[in-house]
């Protein structure tokens, strides 16, 4: 890694006893170039000083039977800190540059306003203006060097950027002024003005604009800073029955971590001991603390409220959900929605086009302008170069996306990229899966209607044993209900899940069948006489299922899945945004109708097979709708993938980042309405920015070229152009910052 003497830190894995320390230290010291090596047994780290490469150190440790890996110091928090320090230093430099340039520019400006034209007629004037010219050169060197160097380098590379425009504009003004000073005879009497104040002022104003923009940009990344700030710095782990406090980067997989009330969870893990309530609002936006007991998952960055727990680390470092969320938000913040593409294409051609306009405008003045034509030509050429602002155009989209995606993350909504953000703002139809989306997804057994069976306990035992093989939420409800009643499950074989119908298996020579009426029909089970009862249950928003033993209907088991408390208000919010809300479910028509009526949905499709969900998405798309699909991300994968925007509803912090365009970290459907509201606000902001930037450039450039002169006798001063240019990009960034004030509707 390095050839200079440096200090490196390694995590040593597998060192179980204090005697290992000596062995490892000796091995490390034996590596080429190591000056000293010391191992800290408590936190299992070693500090090695010398010129050795990290790989060699790892090999040395491995040669004596242990594993080692370098400590990654570039943790997100540190990177942000470094960036802030660098930004602060750059801001100071820009402000100093501004001060130098304006110290010369402002007095010159005042002079030009008070005294009038800065003409060169007498020798004394020539000498004084020459000295001012030298001072201006000093300003160009000290405060504007970066423009000229950047312009030259990109020129050599056949490209042009903002630096090119500023360097050309200020350079032209300065060179012309120096020509007037040295060879006044080269220009007509009336045109013998100097424009040193323009050069100094433009440099000062643009430096000031850059400094203010840097400050404003810092604010656009507040959301990511907040997420990074959630990470704990240290963790208390149990090693050799002793508690040691270590940095979180040193926590290893399977470490036992102790968390006291009021402390942050340091890494992801599973509770081994204790119970507590944990505030997960910072990640999910869900205000209620979540109860955690043994075997429950805990997530890095959340806050332990009440009890002390011990948990086993299951994901550390870059693998924790928090680290992945940060990574995803960062990526999304830097991606561009399609709306920004036109601006990109334009900025590719922008600068050379402006240069051409500048030449054309100078030619027009020289050919058609009044005297002193040359002076007008120089002023208009300079002003065109200076007023044109490729930055405003280039910044319009990314700045808003940065703030919008960050704002969404604060509300527990993870947006994959700019495209998803843009499409989400245009959604006209939203398909909601019923189970787990509108409802809790944790159904409970409510009724057992006996048919040919005589004992509901026996029915539940067999049904639960059969369903123990299935992962369907309804199946789990039956299993849980049996376990709650202390019923022991029996062994089953030949288990077979028939998607969209139900399941079958054998248990102790009995053939068991469990599922909907279609399954019963296919398997020739007679259900006449019970259909009405099933329908009555369904109308109560319960899901009735038929259970048959050896081809005979044994019972109807009804399961109900409670509707999430805020589903109704969230669906209302969607509908208020003119979004067609459609519910899809594999459940019975009657159950679906009951649920739909309760939550205020008029369009629904029941008894839908998973494959049909995708068909429904397609059908809506064919009829011209922009379709959003919300599901749990597993059963609904094809429909989620086909939809214009797929929303995955995370249960708690179990983030299904992979499958969806937008992931809602809490279960509430308000996340959906929030996601759409944020994307609409962001898109509106981008449009304002793009519109502003286009209008600014499209109207500013002809104005600068002197389009108004023939009618009103107005020609823009290059200094005004400099101010306009500096503040146009600042305006874009500030407008994007306005998005920070966006609040998802109260709920």
């Amino acid at each position: 890694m390095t050839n200079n003497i440096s200090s490196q830190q390694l995590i040593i894995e597998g060192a179980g006893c204090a005697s290992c320390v000596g062995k490892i230290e000796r091995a490390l010291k034996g590596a080429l170039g190591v000056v000293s090596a010391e191992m800290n047994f408590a936190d299992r780290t070693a500090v090695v000083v010398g010129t050795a490469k990290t790989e060699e150190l790892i090999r040395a440790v491995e040669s004596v039977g242990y594993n080692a890996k370098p400590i990654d110091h570039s943790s997100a928090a540190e990177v942000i800190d470094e960036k802030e320090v660098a930004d602060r230093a750059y801001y100071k430099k820009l402000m100093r540059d501004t001060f130098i340039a304006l110290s010369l520019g402002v007095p010159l400006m005042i002079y030009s306003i008070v005294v009038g034209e800065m003409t060169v007629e007498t020798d004394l004037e020539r000498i004084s203006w020459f000295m001012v010219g030298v001072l201006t050169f000093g300003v160009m060197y000290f405060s504007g060097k970066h423009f000229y160097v950047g312009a030259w380098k990109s020129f050599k590379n056949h490209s042009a950027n903002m630096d090119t425009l500023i360097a050309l504009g200020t350079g032209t003004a300065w060179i012309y002024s120096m020509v007037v000073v040295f060879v006044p005879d080269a220009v007509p009497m009336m045109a013998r003005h100097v424009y040193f104040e323009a050069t100094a002022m433009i440099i000062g104003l643009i430096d000031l604009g850059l400094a203010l923009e840097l400050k404003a940009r810092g604010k656009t990344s507040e959301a990511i800073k907040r997420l990074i700030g959630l990470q704990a710095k240290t963790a208390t782990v149990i090693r050799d029955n002793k508690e040691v406090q270590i940095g979180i980067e040193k926590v290893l997989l399977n470490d036992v971590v102790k968390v006291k009330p009021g402390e942050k969870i340091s890494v992801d893990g599973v509770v081994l001991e204790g119970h507590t309530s944990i505030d997960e609002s910072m990640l999910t936006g869900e205000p209620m603390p979540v109860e955690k007991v043994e075997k429950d998952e805990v997530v890095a960055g959340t806050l332990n409220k009440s009890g002390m727990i011990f948990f086993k680390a299951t994901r550390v470092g870059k693998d924790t959900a928090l680290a992945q969320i940060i990574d995803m938000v960062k990526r999304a913040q830097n991606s561009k929605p399609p709306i920004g593409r036109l601006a990109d294409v334009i900025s590719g051609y922008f600068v050379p086009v402006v240069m051409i306009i500048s030449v054309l405008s100078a030619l027009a003045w020289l050919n058609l302008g009044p005297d002193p034509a040359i002076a007008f030509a120089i002023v208009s050429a300079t002003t065109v170069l200076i007023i044109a602002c490729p930055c405003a155009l280039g910044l319009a989209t990314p700045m808003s996306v940065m703030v919008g995606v960050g704002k969404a993350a604060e509300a527990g909504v993870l947006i994959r990229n700019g495209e998803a953000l843009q499409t989400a703002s245009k959604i006209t139809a939203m398909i909601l899966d019923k189970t787990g989306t509108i409802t809790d997804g944790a159904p409970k057994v409510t009724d057992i209607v006996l048919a040919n069976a005589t004992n509901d306990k026996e029915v539940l035992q067999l049904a639960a044993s059969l369903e123990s093989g299935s992962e369907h939420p309804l199946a789990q409800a039956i299993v849980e209900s049996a376990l709650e009643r202390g019923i022991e499950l029996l062994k089953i074989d030949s288990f077979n899940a028939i998607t969209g119908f139900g399941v079958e298996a054998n248990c102790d020579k009995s053939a068991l069948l469990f599922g909907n009426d279609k399954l019963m029909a296919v398997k020739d089970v007679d259900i006449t006489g019970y259909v009405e009862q099933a329908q009555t249950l369904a109308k109560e928003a319960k899901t009735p299922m038929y259970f048959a033993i050896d081809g005979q209907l044994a019972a109807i088991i009804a399961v109900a899945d409670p509707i999430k408390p805020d589903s109704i208000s969230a669906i209302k919010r969607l509908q208020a945004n003119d979004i067609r809300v459609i519910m899809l479910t594999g459940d019975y028509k009657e159950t679906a109708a009951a649920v739909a009526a309760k939550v205020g949905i008029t369009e629904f499709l029941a008894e839908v097979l998973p494959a049909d969900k995708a068909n429904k998405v397609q059908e809506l798309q064919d009829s011209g709708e922009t379709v959003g699909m919300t599901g749990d991300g597993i059963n609904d994968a094809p429909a989620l993938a086909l939809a214009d925007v797929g929303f995955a509803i995370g249960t708690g912090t179990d983030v299904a980042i992979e499958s969806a365009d937008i992931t809602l970290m809490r279960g509430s459907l308000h996340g959906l309405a929030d996601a759409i509201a944020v994307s609409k606000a962001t898109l509106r902001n981008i449009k304002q920015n793009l519109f502003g930037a286009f209008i600014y450039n499209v109207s500013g450039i002809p104005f600068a070229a002197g389009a108004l002169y023939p009618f009103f006798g107005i020609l823009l001063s290059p200094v005004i152009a400099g101010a306009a240019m500096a503040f146009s990009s600042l305006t874009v960034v500030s407008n994007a910052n306005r998005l920070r004030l966006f609040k998802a509707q109260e709920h």
Partner: protein
Amino acid sequence: MIIINILGVALIAIIVWWFWLYKPNKTVVINNEILIEVKDGMYSPSSIQVSASQPVTLKFVRKDQSPCAETMLIPSLDISEQLKLNEVTQITLLDLSPGEYEFHCQMQMYRGVLKVI
């Protein structure tokens, strides 16, 4: 006046030629690793050629403090990376199929291309 007009038109022609028509042949052919300096509004080298189906590592060293240089995007690969100031930011690309992959800053002022053949 005629001369001035001719000069003006010639200047426009030069701008068009220099910035659009002229195709610099400064492509750097590399095996699997390249250090790219990010400074003064440019990536250097900015045109890089590699052979397909082998991993390539781009090591960016950002020496420009201006925030413009901070983000590097490879849109066609869905990559966006924050470049750390005065440090190496490494991006390894595996199994690239032949084609041209543009990389640029957020505002497309810094631009470069990775040619995979």
